[in-house]
């Protein structure tokens, strides 16, 4: 083989480094070469790929077939040319990146059988249901498998594979648009701008129809003898955007855990689960088409309109009762909200309590609140009495307790995790939360890597918007020297920008002073790149140290050695093997930690 992965895959961008490394690990050298080539050159024909990678055209073509199947590459053929063009498609690689977690998640919520099917779908890219069934002999297993497919499909973990999954969105859009534009007549009374806008609006409808098409019950399901099953001719793929929604829910629950409390977070997690399936997509297809929605305000409006529509359609709202039904039985919420019951023990408890000791801590806390708080307590007490809901402390999940937790989530901290649309009905403000989510993760990462002082300085700078060394030092109560060091650290990590303010005409350096400023989007992107690079580095590390012990690992793979390692390997070799294993596990652990952060910035 002549082609090699060009060294530039590491340096051209962190994404290129990560994606090529993953492709190399999962799909082999040739796939990695093709992907790296497509990332660096953009759209190419198979001949051009062959020319640029110095691979024989036959090898390129066979690699492209599997890559297209695995959704690692898009293809596009213009109507008037016979030449196919290929583009890199992120989704396939992201499927591999998340595969471990996807399978694990399916396993925990549905079970092993479900996970097996998902694994097979991931390995093959997509599966025709009837083909999958062919391999199963037993009738009962067949029926069970059909049910599993149906369940996964209705829960949206599997989606129908359609032709447009293989084409870049922008091309499909452009195609439809040009078509419609041609059909929109030119007339003397309408201006060209108006005509284009009209065509654009029509294209939006046509495009949405295309994306949402092929989903009618008739096409998807077959009902025989009152038994509903998926159409066996359906080809299904894994729905990555469904998994991303799950990632988002998990990240939000983690944020709630750190801001509000463990139990509230648990309730939040379950609430998120209730609406997860219908929650807005991470990225709407319209936003992936360049030039369609340019204005940031328009984009914001568009995203909000999607979310509002889901709320109006009651897709992402839930009621307290729904939530109560879904709580795990062992979740003990009793006494987790300290209302008057805590501060003024109720009658039954008074009767039981014969000595003073169990009550004394309550009294102490009441005293600590001071006099003026008594009014508040009475107010709470009255408010509670006016509500008809009773506080029953024997129930693990009393409605009133859940309601209190939901209220805490909606206005108990600086982040609004929930919005109460009507009494007892809540919705989740996804768009607004993503902002807080990214901000808090980012800041915590700064705290854990650059230290608490950097964290303080950065947050101060954020609140000041712009500031010089002196104003920062005064506000954070740190020595100017410390502040200077911290700002330097932040600057080195590209988290603050410097603005030069010259005070004399010749811009003399001695008289100039400098202002600092922090820009969120820039920092997040930079950080995300650093994270992606680190992930790729870890994968490379694992490969490297495996490479160092290649002979030993090959020996273990030999047929005669397998299963007889204890007899055939030296003690030192066994020790090395064990070391290699722990080292790999540790590195994979690190990899997943970084990945969990990286995901947050892809939301």
């Amino acid at each position, binding site marked *: 083989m002549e082609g090699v992965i060009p060294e530039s895959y590491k340096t051209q961008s962190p994404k290129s480094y990560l994606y090529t490394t993953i492709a190399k690990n999962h799909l082999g050298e040739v796939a990695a070469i093709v992907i790296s080539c497509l990332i660096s050159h953009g759209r190419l024909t198979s001949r051009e790929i062959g020319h640029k990678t110095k691979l024989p055209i036959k090898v390129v073509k066979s690699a492209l077939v599997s890559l297209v199947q695995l959704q690692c590459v898009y293809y596009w053929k213009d109507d008037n040319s016979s030449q196919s063009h290929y583009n890199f498609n992120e989704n396939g690689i992201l499927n591999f990146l998340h595969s471990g977690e996807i399978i694990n998640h399916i396993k925990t919520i549905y079970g092993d059988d479900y996970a097996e099917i998902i694994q097979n779908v991931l390995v093959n890219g997509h599966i025709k249901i009837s083909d999958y069934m062919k391999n199963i002999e037993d009738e009962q297993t067949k029926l069970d498998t059909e049910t599993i497919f149906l369940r996964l499909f209705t829960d949206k973990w599997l989606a129908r594979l359609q032709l447009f999954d293989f084409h870049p969105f922008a091309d499909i859009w452009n195609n439809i648009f040009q078509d419609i534009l041609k059909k929109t007549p030119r007339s003397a009374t309408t201006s060209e701008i108006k005509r284009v806008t009209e065509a654009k609006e029509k294209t939006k409808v046509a495009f949405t129809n295309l994306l949402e098409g092929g989903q009618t019950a008739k096409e998807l399901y077959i009902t025989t003898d009152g038994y509903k099953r998926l159409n066996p001719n359906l080809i299904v793929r894994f729905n990555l955007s469904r998994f991303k929604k799950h990632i988002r829910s*998990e990240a939000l629950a*983690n*944020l709630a*855990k*750190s*801001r*509000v*409390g*463990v*139990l509230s977070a*648990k309730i939040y997690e379950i609430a998120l689960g209730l609406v997860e399936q219908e929650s807005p997509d991470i990225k709407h297809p319209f936003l992936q088409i360049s030039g369609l929605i340019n204005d940031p305000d328009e984009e914001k409006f568009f995203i909000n309109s999607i979310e509002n529509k889901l709320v109006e359609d009651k897709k992402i709202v839930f009621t307290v009762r729904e939530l109560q039904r879904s709580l*795990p039985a*062992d*979740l*003990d919420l009793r*006494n*987790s*909200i*300290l*209302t008057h019951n*805590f501060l003024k023990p109720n009658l039954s408890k008074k009767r039981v309590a014969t000595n003073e000791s169990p009550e004394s*801590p309550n009294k102490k*806390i009441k005293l*600590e*609140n*001071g006099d003026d*708080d008594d009014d*508040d307590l009475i107010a709470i007490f009255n*408010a509670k009495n006016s509500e008809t809901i009773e506080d029953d402390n024997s129930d693990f999940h009393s409605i009133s307790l859940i309601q*209190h937790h939901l*209220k*805490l989530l909606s206005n*108990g*901290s*600086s982040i609004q995790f929930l919005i109460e649309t009507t009494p007892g009905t809540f919705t989740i403000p996804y768009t607004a939360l993503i902002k807080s989510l990214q901000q*808090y*993760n980012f*800041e*915590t990462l700064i*705290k*854990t890597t650059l230290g*608490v002082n950097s*964290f*303080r*300085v950065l*947050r*101060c700078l954020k*609140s000041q918007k712009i500031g010089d060394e002196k104003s920062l030092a005064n*506000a954070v*109560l740190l*020595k100017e020297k410390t502040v200077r060091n911290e700002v330097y650290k932040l600057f080195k*990590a590209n988290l603050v920008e410097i603005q030069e303010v010259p005070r004399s005409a010749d811009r003399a350096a001695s008289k100039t002073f400098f202002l600092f400023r922090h820009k969120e989007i820039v920092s997040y992107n930079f950080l995300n*790149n*650093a*994270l992606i690079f*680190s992930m790729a*580095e*870890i994968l490379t590390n694992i490969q490297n140290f495996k490479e160092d012990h290649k002979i030993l690992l090959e020996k273990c793979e030999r047929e005669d050695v397998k299963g007889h390692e204890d007899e055939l390997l030296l003690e030192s070799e066994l020790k090395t093997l064990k070391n290699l294993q722990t080292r790999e596990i540790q*590195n994979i652990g690190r990899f997943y930690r970084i990945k*969990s952060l990286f995901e947050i910035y892809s939301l």
Partner: protein
Amino acid sequence: MSDVSERAHVLHEKMLESPSSTLFNQQELQDLLQITKPVELLNLAQELINRKLVKLVKQGDELKFQAVSVAEANKITKMTDDEAMIYSYIEDSGREGIWTKTIRARTNLHQHVVVKCLKSLENQRYIKSIKSVKHPTRKIYMLYNLQPSIELTGGPWFTDSELDTEFIDSLLTVIWRFAASKTYPTAFQTTEDSNPVQSSYPSNHTGFVNLDTIMEFITSNKITNVDLVINDIKSLCDVLVYDDKLELIIHTTDTYKATWQSVLEAGSGRPYEDKANKDVINEKFREVLKPKSFSIFEHYSVLPEVEEADTTYLDAWFQT
């Protein structure tokens, strides 16, 4: 004073009867002794000025007289002329102090002379050298018995013109702990009646700390002997907000609550995680609460990395 004439002496006494630093104009002095002729006053005034018992002060276009105490006058009369001149400038600067370079510029004296005079004045404990927070390199002098102004000392956060970070940190901890105990009733001590995993006040609770209660807490517990004003408390609270240890309650300007993350980071609020605490919660409940994914907010529970060959660093990308 023996060589001062009787009338001059009386005039001086009468001038001293008014509060110090009162300025008299010519007419007022004449009224004090019921002198009608300016010439008569002129003689007396000249006599007092010669003995440094009266100072001339120019206010606007008018020339005014100010009495100087006998002790002060003795001090000045013992000085050389240069010393007296420098001393008068230092005296004028009051609590702000004066920079040696400014003295030199104003007096037009040679540096050697100025340094010599300053040294002699300092040795006699008439003046002292102080440090300014704003200009740490400048040598600034003021009268020995004066306290430097806040501008120079930098306020309560400075001890010997150095930012006293230890003092600040301990105050921050005290305030945070106070706020945390008001926000999370069982953060530092669990009670029988509360849930060991989370016990929060309901969302309509109002007993959180504000600037006044913090101030009262600090004064009543005699936490510091440094005088703090409400603004100082405010800047401490601001720092705690930057540290993400406190957060402002929405729609208020001075009411704070401690963040749950800060309580967690301080090592409180999670006794249930420890498997050894069997009686705190039962095993099934613990299983429900087990974290499902890695969260950076729980960084405190991550074991520190031992330096290893495969450790990757966050800055690996931009350092290469």
